[in-house]
């Protein structure tokens, strides 16, 4: 029996914390609440090298929030009693945050254990242990014991918890052994001096096997080779043609006597049977010993003058339009190819499709296709006409194309919407309260489909048609990737790419973490800007 170190820990010892201004306690005074939380943090500060500074920002390392019921994570509260609070292990984004059940009767200054209610100090000290990287302990009496035990006056951190936190961050005393844990540098503004800098770009473009599409000579058919030139590979060539064609008959201008009817050159009927007088039928005039005239307009001999055109002529080959041509919305919201974020990215039929607003780009082996960005509804006409954007797109293992828009899923076979679609997301086993999907992909590592939304993700069973049990899980599983991503897909190089804003992360599937902590710019790599 002992403390349990979870494994993740903060890289620095000077941590910041704040009480969320959005999710404040509904029944408690915020000032006194902050005071109690500071005391709870002080418990850990006194036993380790950690320091805690309160700031007024939602970007603090440890953000304390009060919430009820389901509150946008995988651990909903259950009203008064039972579950009191939970916290997340150290990490970016939601890592380190602590959530308290606002339905509980919180006591800021409990007098004794018999008093009805729950000591905020006791629970906060426990949850902050999780925020620092400690898991639950099986030692009864330890602060990290999972069940509520109340708090005694003149509280002292139990030995089990002290051993745990000191193993991670070192004791309070100045010990050279623990000097390796750095102090996070305070951000200072850069000096205002002008210097010339040279930058080298190390952007790697996708390898193009064919000439760039800007070369007008390409793509083109290969040059004609009448026969193979390499006799070593084609020993039967060059050779005479196997078949000789008969000579075509020539037209003889004078009469001749012919042996068979096959040799008689073919002539038109009126050439064999000339009419004695001038005749005009079907807009053609036949006159003996004169060339046949094909009139531009047919003539009617009943008209007043010769060659008067008929009344229904001239006429167009196509009738007049009777319906109105549908008007297209003005293209004022066309995104800038080299300076935009993406709504969705997908690899479809071996080509890269990038979606933004009503438009999409298509990038093939030769680079970006001309005439793009193009409206999405031109490629998939069954989508709503008033489409503003798509949320996620991916190609299923059965080669069908899934497009998520809001709470609905559209499934296409190439460009045809399949019957029964669009379907609500709830039919896939997703929560009915889910507003949209951020991203979707088929992960090549295991061939499974994943849906991402907010801070959670689901694993989808394509055979069952529903998400698997034990989901949703936290996005923290994909280490280094922020919450609320824009898109994700697996490229032909086998790597997974997560997109957010105008940048992306390259993900290492084996290590389950990003290869680049800082985002790389998307436009240069994917759009060829």
């Amino acid at each position: 029996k002992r403390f349990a170190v979870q494994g993740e820990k903060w890289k620095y010892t000077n941590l910041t914390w704040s009480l969320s201004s959005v999710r404040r306690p509904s029944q408690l005074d915020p000032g006194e609440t902050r005071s109690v939380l500071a005391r709870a943090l002080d418990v850990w500060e006194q036993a380790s090298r950690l320091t805690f500074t309160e700031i007024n920002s939602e970007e603090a390392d440890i953000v304390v929030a009060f919430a009820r019921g389901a509150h946008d994570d995988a651990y909903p509260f259950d009203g008064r009693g039972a579950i009191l609070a939970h916290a997340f292990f150290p990490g970016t984004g939601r890592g380190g945050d602590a959530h308290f059940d606002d339905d509980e009767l919180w006591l800021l200054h409990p007098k004794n254990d018999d008093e009805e209610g729950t000591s905020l100090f006791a629970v906060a000290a426990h949850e902050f242990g999780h925020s620092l990287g400690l898991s639950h302990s099986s030692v009864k009496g330890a602060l990290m014991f999972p069940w509520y035990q109340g708090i005694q006056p003149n509280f002292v951190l139990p030995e089990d918890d002290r051993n745990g936190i000191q193993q991670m961050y070192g004791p309070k005393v100045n010990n050279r052994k623990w000097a390796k844990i750095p102090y996070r540098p305070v951000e200072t503004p850069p000096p205002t001096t002008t210097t010339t800098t040279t930058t080298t770009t190390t952007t790697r473009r996708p390898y193009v096997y064919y000439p760039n599409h800007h070369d007008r000579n390409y793509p083109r058919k290969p040059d004609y080779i009448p026969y193979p030139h390499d006799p070593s590979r084609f020993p039967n060539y060059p050779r005479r043609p196997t078949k000789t064609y008969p000579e075509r008959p020539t037209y003889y201008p004078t009469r001749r006597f012919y042996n068979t009817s096959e040799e008689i050159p073919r002539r038109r009927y009126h050439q064999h049977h000339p009419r004695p007088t001038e005749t005009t039928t079907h807009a053609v005039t036949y006159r003996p010993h004169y060339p046949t005239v094909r009139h531009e307009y047919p003539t009617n001999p009943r008209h007043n003058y010769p060659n008067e055109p008929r009344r229904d002529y001239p006429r167009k080959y196509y009738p007049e339009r009777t319906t109105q041509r549908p008007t297209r919305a003005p293209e004022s919201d066309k995104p800038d190819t080299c300076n935009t974020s993406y709504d969705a990215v997908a690899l479809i039929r071996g080509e890269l499709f990038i979606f933004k607003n009503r438009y999409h780009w298509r990038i093939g082996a030769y680079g970006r296709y001309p005439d793009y960005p193009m409206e999405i509804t031109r490629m998939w006409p069954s989508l709503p006409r008033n489409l503003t954007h798509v949320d996620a797109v991916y190609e299923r293992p059965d080669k069908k194309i899934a497009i998520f828009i809001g709470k609905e899923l559209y499934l296409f076979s190439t460009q045809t919407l399949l019957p029964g679609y669009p379907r609500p997301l709830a039919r896939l086993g997703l929560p009915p309260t889910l507003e949209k999907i951020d991203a979707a992909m088929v992960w090549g590592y295991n061939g499974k489909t994943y849906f991402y939304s907010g801070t959670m993700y689901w694993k989808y069973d394509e055979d069952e048609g529903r998400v698997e049990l034990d989901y949703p899980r936290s996005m923290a599983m994909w280490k280094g990737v922020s919450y609320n991503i824009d898109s994700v897909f697996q490229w032909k190089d086998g790597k997974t790419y997560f997109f957010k804003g105008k940048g992306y992360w390259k993900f290492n599937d084996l290590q389950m973490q990003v290869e680049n902590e800082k985002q790389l710019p998307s436009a240069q790599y994917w759009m060829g800007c």
Partner: protein
Amino acid sequence: APTGHRAMRHIHHEKSARGYLERFGYLSKGRPEMANLLMGNSVQSYEDDFRIAIKTLQEFGGIAVTGELDEATKKLMKQKRCGRPDREEWESENGHRK
């Protein structure tokens, strides 16, 4: 054999206990596949897992380890507690256990 009402209550208690154990990491979620159930292979292991999970919970909570869903265990499950799982061992998406 228990009477009708007692049997129903027992099933209800076991269901809610199973949910509790799954929530806090003592049991993995999901039921065995129907084919295995018909074979009769995993029914026994299904119940064994439940019994082992109860024992683990009792040991973690510092109460008598019986393997049965007794009153002490039910009382422990109703106590106020933290929402994090007690057992954090899980399998990441690429199959590596953490």
